[in-house]
């Protein structure tokens, strides 16, 4: 009986950070709904998705990078570069669909370049992507010093179409709760990401690399190819996030998305993904993004607190989640040490447990 309970607990321990994230989200939103009547409006909940499609999209890309044991600090730069390049191309009269394709290709090219540096030249991810951030931000200002407005039919359609929620809106008067097209896009990206992470060979390889790159290599997994793909994919996500942002603000400027990388990393960590890699869930990232959204909403509804509390609270939450993770990791080490002493576990298991912490 005790064995069964212990096994169950240790099997479910990996869900604890995720459960904590979801609980925190529910508590924060519940608190807001109790205190502020306005937050009971379903539209406020939908606005959490509507407010920042670019945040979720780039956080999903970042989740894969962090799961693989890397980090990408370039997202803010690539997002800004995408908005500027999009705006410049649209102003020049390029076909909007072609612009979207070009931007996605550009994002993938930037991601692949950084991936090549990290994979083949063994440059630390943090340095390689930092360089990527600088180059991308610098290029923005090479294209244009000022913000470029976007006046394009497709961008208007993407930005202003209201998708009414059945049951909560009246289709004849077009009044009621709604989401935008970009919300559908972000949820689509999320669905694809969940599938890729948990149901494909690529996803399993990402987890394996994050757990222990050397072991993954020795197992014969295609580590290099997977790492390249992870960074390329994140470049794609950044570019898509950039398009989403340009739709949102219908302009492009090099100073957009300043510090986005930090918010994104915070969202991923709050979502329960271990920064050392190998542990976490894509769906957790969704809740990480939502929690940041709720914090912003609460601060807005409060009206008294200044908006500078947002980064402070996000920082503290990030710390708290890292704390939970270190605690769980320490617990695991102790357990494997005990097992080794008792002689129940095979030596390799105990060794692996220690390695992971």
């Amino acid at each position, binding site marked *: 009986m005790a064995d069964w309970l212990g096994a169950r607990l240790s099997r479910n321990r990996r869900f604890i950070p995720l459960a904590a994230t979801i609980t925190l989200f529910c508590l924060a939103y519940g608190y807001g709904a109790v205190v502020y009547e306005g937050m009971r409006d379903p539209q406020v909940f939908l606005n959490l998705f509507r407010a920042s499609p670019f945040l979720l999209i780039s956080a999903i890309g970042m989740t894969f990078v962090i799961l693989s044991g890397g980090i990408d600090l370039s997202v803010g730069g690539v997002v800004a570069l995408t908005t500027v390049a999009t705006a410049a191309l649209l102003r020049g009269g390029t076909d909007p669909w072609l612009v979207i394709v070009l931007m996605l290709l550009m994002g993938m090219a930037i991601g692949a370049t950084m991936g090549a540096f990290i994979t083949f030249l063994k440059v630390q991810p943090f340095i390689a992507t*930092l360089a990527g951030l*600088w*180059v991308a*931000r*610098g290029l923005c200002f090479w294209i244009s010093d000022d913000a470029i407005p976007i006046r394009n039919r497709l961008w208007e359609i993407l930005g202003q179409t209201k998708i009414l929620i059945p049951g909560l809106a009246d289709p004849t008067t077009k009044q009621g709760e709604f989401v935008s097209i970009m919300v559908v896009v972000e949820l689509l990206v999320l669905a694809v990401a969940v599938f890729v992470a948990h149901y494909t060979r690529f996803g399993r390889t990402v987890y394996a690399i994050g757990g222990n790159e050397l072991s993954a290599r020795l197992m014969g997994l295609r580590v290099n190819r997977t790492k390249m793909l992870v960074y390329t994919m994140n470049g794609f996500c950044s570019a898509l996030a950039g398009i989403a942002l340009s739709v949102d603000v219908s302009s492009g400027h090099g100073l957009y998305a300043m510090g986005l990388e930090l918010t994104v990393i915070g969202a991923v*960590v709050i979502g329960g993904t271990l920064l050392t890699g190998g542990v976490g869930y894509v769906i957790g990232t969704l809740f990480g993004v939502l929690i940041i959204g709720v914090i912003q909403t609460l601060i807005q509804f409060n009206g008294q607190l*200044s908006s500078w509390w947002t980064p402070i609270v996000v920082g503290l939450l990030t710390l708290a989640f890292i*704390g939970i993770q270190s605690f769980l990791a320490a617990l695991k080490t102790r357990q494997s040490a005990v097992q080794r002493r008792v002689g129940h576990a095979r030596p390799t298991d105990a060794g692996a447990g220690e390695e992971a912490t």
Partner: protein
Amino acid sequence: MARASAAPTVRRVTESRLFFPLVVLAVILLFNLVYDAGFFALDTIDGHLYGNVIDILRDGSTVMLLAIGMTLVIATGGVDLSVGAVMAISASVAALLINPDLQSLSNDPNVTATPLPVVLIATLVVATVCGLWNGALVAYGGIQPMVATLILMIAGRGIAQLITNGVRIQIFYEPYAFLGNGWIILPFSLFIVAAVFVVAWLMTRRTALGMFIESVGINSRSSFFSGINERRVKLVAYMFCGFCAGMAGLVASSSIRTSDANNIGLNFELDAILAVVIGGTALGAGGRFSLFASIIGAIVMQAITTSMYAIGVPAHALLAVKGVVVVLVILLLSVQVREFVRRVAAPKAA
């Protein structure tokens, strides 16, 4: 025990350590000379030296200060991303102490609400406490340095804004402005850099601390087993880095005479890290370090910035140039490229 036989080797290593940053610096300066023949001209006004080279040193003094602290942290195998935010915090603290009344700013150059020594000490204490926080998270919390310092990097600017209630406090108090704007033949900020450098040098080269730091960087665990309190060594390194960031914040805010919580120290962590990397201290690996090489690295960074401005590259676009420089430096330092060069060069030599 192997000191006698190791001495020439150590000297050779030191030389090669300084060699690379100095070559880079020389190339940049040469480029400037070609571009503008009068680049090295020095003027004396009221007995003070002015000129492009002096400007590079003066503008680079904040990055030099940061690089000194960052060298120790990187040598322990860590990194401190929060220095830019700590600069902003210390600038806000100093400005608030000088002028706590945010509503009516006194623009009398001789008036301060707090005596200058108290302002300086309080600010540096706050900055050191920021370093203590980072160090505690890394050394005692067991959190990866990049992540631990990321937290203060995210939250720090928010804290700096809260301190000044979002107001950019102008500083009219002249003695404070002397830190970043004063001249005693050379810019006064250079003397601050020199003082901090000497303190750091004495601390690491005249006590065992430097060796401990290198040992912790090379292998934290084995240092622990050889009886080094590796946690305390890390803690000291981060605290000193915070102290240096506080100093840099003082110089930066005094030089622009405001506490600009949004922009003071923005992206400076990157310049500082890059300066240390150019100086040859291995990022992520830690181990052997050279404070002087990091200072040269900082000057290289500032020389690049200044020369790009001279050519007329816009301020923001400059980042792209810096990014390319990082890539080049990484390539030059990477094992793969060195092996490739050796392989290409070997047949010719044979």
